[in-house]
C-alpha cells in the first residue's frame, strides 16, 4: 500500500510533537529540526525552500511513527480483491467532513481527516476502521452499491434528507460490527442512537428501538434496502419486518430547537415557522415527504409560501401573504 499525506497535515502534527516535547522539557526533537531547517534557509534557494521544508517535515512525521500507525490499520482491511493500492490523506478542519472516498476507477483511496484525529491514536483508529468498513461494503458485490441514481426523484432538499438517513442507517450497521470486534469508542452508540432518532421523528419509540437493534446487531442492509428505508418510517419498518408504529401529525412533539438545522435547507436556524395547513400544502407540493413534525425554518417557509402563491395550484394564498 502506497501512502501519501498532505504536507500541511504533516507539518502541524510534527509542530505539535515539538510543543509536547518542550512542555516536558525535552528540546532535542525541536532543536534537531531547527538545525536542519537552518541549513535550508542558508543553502537552498528561496524558490526551493517550501519543498525542502515539506520533505523535512515528512521525514519527521514518519520518524514519529504516524505512517506506521495508519499503515497498521489499513492492512487489517487491505487483503481482499479490488482493494485500492494507493491512499492519500487530505486535511480538513471539520469533523463532519472527515471520511474516505474511492476514486472512480477504484485504484485510489482518499481520506479527509483533521489533525486532531490523526494525533489521537484511538480516535484515528476508529475513524479509519469505520471508513474502511464502508469501503469494504462498497467493494462487496452483495452490497450492490449504486450511485447512478439520486435517492429522491422529487427535489434536492428531499435528496439531502434522504442522504442523511442513508448515511446514518449504514453507520448503525457499521458501528454495530465494530462494537462486536471491540473497536467502538465509548458513548458512540448513544450518539448514533440520537442521530437516528432525529431523522425519523414520527417513528414510535418501540419501533425505533427495534429498528436500531436490528441494524446494530444483526442486519447489514444492502444498498438497495437502504434506498427503500430512507423514504420514510413506514418503509423503514417494512424492509426490516418490524410492526410499524407511526405518529400522526400533531401527536409528536418535535425536538428541534434554536440553532439546529432546518431539514429543508440544512441551514441552522433560530426561527422555526409555525406549521399551518397552507404551509404544509405549499411544502408538500415540491416535497411530499416533509411532515410538519420535522420543522421548517422561517426562511424556507416564506420561500415555499411564495412559490405556492404564484403557482396556480393554490389559489388564495397570495392575498394572505400580501396582507
Amino acid at each position, binding site marked *: 500500500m502506497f501512502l501519501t499525506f498532505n504536507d*500541511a497535515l504533516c507539518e502541524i502534527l510534527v509542530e505539535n510533537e515539538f510543543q509536547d516535547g518542550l512542555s516536558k522539557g525535552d528540546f532535542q526533537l525541536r532543536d534537531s529540526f531547527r538545525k536542519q531547517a537552518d541549513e535550508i534557509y542558508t543553502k537552498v534557494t528561496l524558490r526551493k*525552500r517550501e519543498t525542502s521544508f515539506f520533505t523535512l517535515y515528512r521525514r519527521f512525521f514518519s520518524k514519529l511513527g504516524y505512517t506506521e500507525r495508519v499503515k497498521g490499520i489499513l492492512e487489517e482491511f487491505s487483503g481482499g480483491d479490488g482493494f485500492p493500492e494507493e491512499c492519500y490523506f487530505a486535511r480538513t478542519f471539520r469533523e463532519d467532513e472527515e471520511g474516505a472516498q474511492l476514486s472512480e476507477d477504484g485504484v485510489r483511496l482518499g481520506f479527509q481527516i483533521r489533525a486532531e484525529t490523526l494525533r489521537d491514536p484511538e480516535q484515528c483508529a476508529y475513524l479509519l476502521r469505520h471508513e474502511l468498513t464502508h469501503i469494504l461494503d462498497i467493494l462487496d458485490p452483495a452490497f450492490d452499491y449504486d450511485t447512478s441514481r439520486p435517492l429522491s426523484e422529487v427535489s434536492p432538499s428531499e435528496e439531502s434528507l434522504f442522504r442523511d438517513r442513508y448515511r446514518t442507517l449504514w453507520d448503525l450497521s457499521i458501528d454495530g460490527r465494530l462494537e462486536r470486534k471491540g473497536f467502538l469508542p465509548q458513548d458512540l452508540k448513544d450518539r448514533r442512537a440520537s442521530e437516528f432518532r432525529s431523522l425519523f421523528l414520527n417513528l414510535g419509540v418501540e419501533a425505533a428501538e427495534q429498528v436500531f437493534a436490528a441494524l446494530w446487531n444483526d442486519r447489514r442492509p444492502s444498498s438497495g434496502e437502504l434506498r427503500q428505508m430512507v423514504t420514510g418510517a413506514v418503509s423503514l419498518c417494512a424492509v426490516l419486518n418490524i410492526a410499524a408504529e407511526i405518529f400522526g401529525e400533531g401527536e409528536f412533539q418535535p425536538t428541534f430547537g434554536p440553532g439546529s438545522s432546518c431539514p429543508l435547507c440544512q441551514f441552522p436556524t433560530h426561527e422555526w415557522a409555525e406549521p399551518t395547513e397552507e404551509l404544509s400544502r405549499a411544502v408538500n407540493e415540491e416535497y411530499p415527504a416533509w411532515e410538519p413534525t420535522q420543522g421548517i425554518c422561517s426562511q424556507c417557509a416564506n420561500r415555499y409560501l411564495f412559490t405556492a402563491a404564484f403557482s396556480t395550484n393554490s389559489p388564495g394564498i397570495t392575498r394572505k401573504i400580501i396582507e
Partner: protein
Amino acid sequence: MSQVYNWQLGRKMAYPFEEKHPDHQFAFVFNINRCIGCQTCSMACKSTWTFSKGQEYMWWNNVESKPYGGYPQNWDVKALQMLEKANPGKQEWDATKNGARRPYGAYGGMTMFEAASRRIGPEGPQRVLGYLPSDEEWRFPNTGEDAAKGPKGARGTYDKQGASLPEHNSWFFYLQRICNHCTYPACLAACPRKAIYKRPEDGIVLIDQERCRGYRKCVEACPYKKPMFRANTRTSEKCIGCYPRIEGKEELSNGTPWETRCMAACVGKIRMQGLVGIDKKTGDWSNDPQNPIYFLVKKEKVALPLYPQFGTEPNGYYIPPRWVPRPYLHQMFGPGVEEAIERYTAPSRELLAVMQLFRAQQAIIARFEIKEGPKVYETKINGKPWALFNDTVIGYDAKGNELVRMTVEEGLQKRPAERANSI
C-alpha cells in the same frame, strides 16, 4: 528588563530593551463612526503587497465587525483573558491621576510584558504574554460580519425596542486594523533572532526577511496579531507601513511623502495618517498642535489608542463609535472614551475644520491652518448651544507647500444648462 516610559499608561513599565526613540513616528487616526465596512482598504493593501503565493490568508489590513468578528478569530478576547488570568481583576485605570504626561490617567494593571514573567512557558518565562493562533483561527478573515450584539443571555436575537443615543441596545461597529508600529513593539521584543527592527527615521517596524527563521515568536507575542506567517517562504511578514510611499518614492508623487495605500483608498474618508515629531529625550510627541495627527490625539483628545493596556504604546488612534455601550469602549480604548465622544458629538470649530482634511488628497499633511469664515447655522447639541462656521482649512506638506484647501460647508456644483441631462 529595563524600565521605559509609556505615556498612554501614564507610567513606567518593564520592556526587554532600553528606551530609544525615532526622529518621527508613523501614526494614524481612524474615525470608526464613518466606516462603512467596504474593505476597500483591505483590497488596496492586498493588491499592493500580499497578492503572491503563500500570502492567501494574509490581510495586513483588515476590517472586522465588533463584538463578534476578529482576525484571527477572538484575538482580543484571548489576549484580554490572558491578562486577566495573570493578574485577576486588577486591569484598572486611575483616571484622576491625569496630567501633561499622562493624558488618560495612570494604568494600575499589568501589561503584556509585565504579565509575561508570571507565565512560565516550556522555554522559561515568556518575554511577552501571548499565544500562537491555530490555522483554524486564521481561516475566516471576516467572520461575524455585521452580527449585532443583542440582549444579554439571549443568543441569536436582537433587541426589538428601538433605542437612541447615547447607547444602542443592539449594536456592532467596524474596527479597522493594521500594524500599530508600536513605540514598544511586542513583536520586536520577542524575536530571538533580532530580525525585527524599528526604523530610526519614522518608527516603522519591519521584519528582516533575511534574518527571519520562521520561529513565529512575533506572531505569538504581538497582542494585535499583526505579524503573519508565510508558509512558502517560511518567514513571518507584516504591514510595512507602505514605507516607500512615506519616503516619497511613489512614482506619481514627485517626491512628496504620500499616505499609505490603505489610507489613500478609504471610501468612507475615515482615515488620516501622518508623521509626528518625537522629543528624543522624553519620548513624548513634540508639541505641534498644527499637525493634524497631533491635534486630534493630543490636543482635542478625540482619538484614542487601541487596547493601551497591552503596553506596546500603539500608534494607531481611533475616534470611538458613539452608539456603543461605554463599558465595552472603556475596555477597548481606555478611560478617554467619554471625553472623546463628547468632543466628537459637538465638535469645536477647529476639529470640524480638521475633519474635512480626511481623504481630501493623498499626500501626508504635516501642518494645517484655518481661515475663519461666517457663522452659517446654529442649534443645540445635548442641551448646549452649538454653531457651525464655514471656515476654510488648508493642509501643507513638510516643506510648506500647500496640498489642499477645504471649506467646512461642502461646495455645491451647479450643473450648467447645456449639461442638464448628462451624467
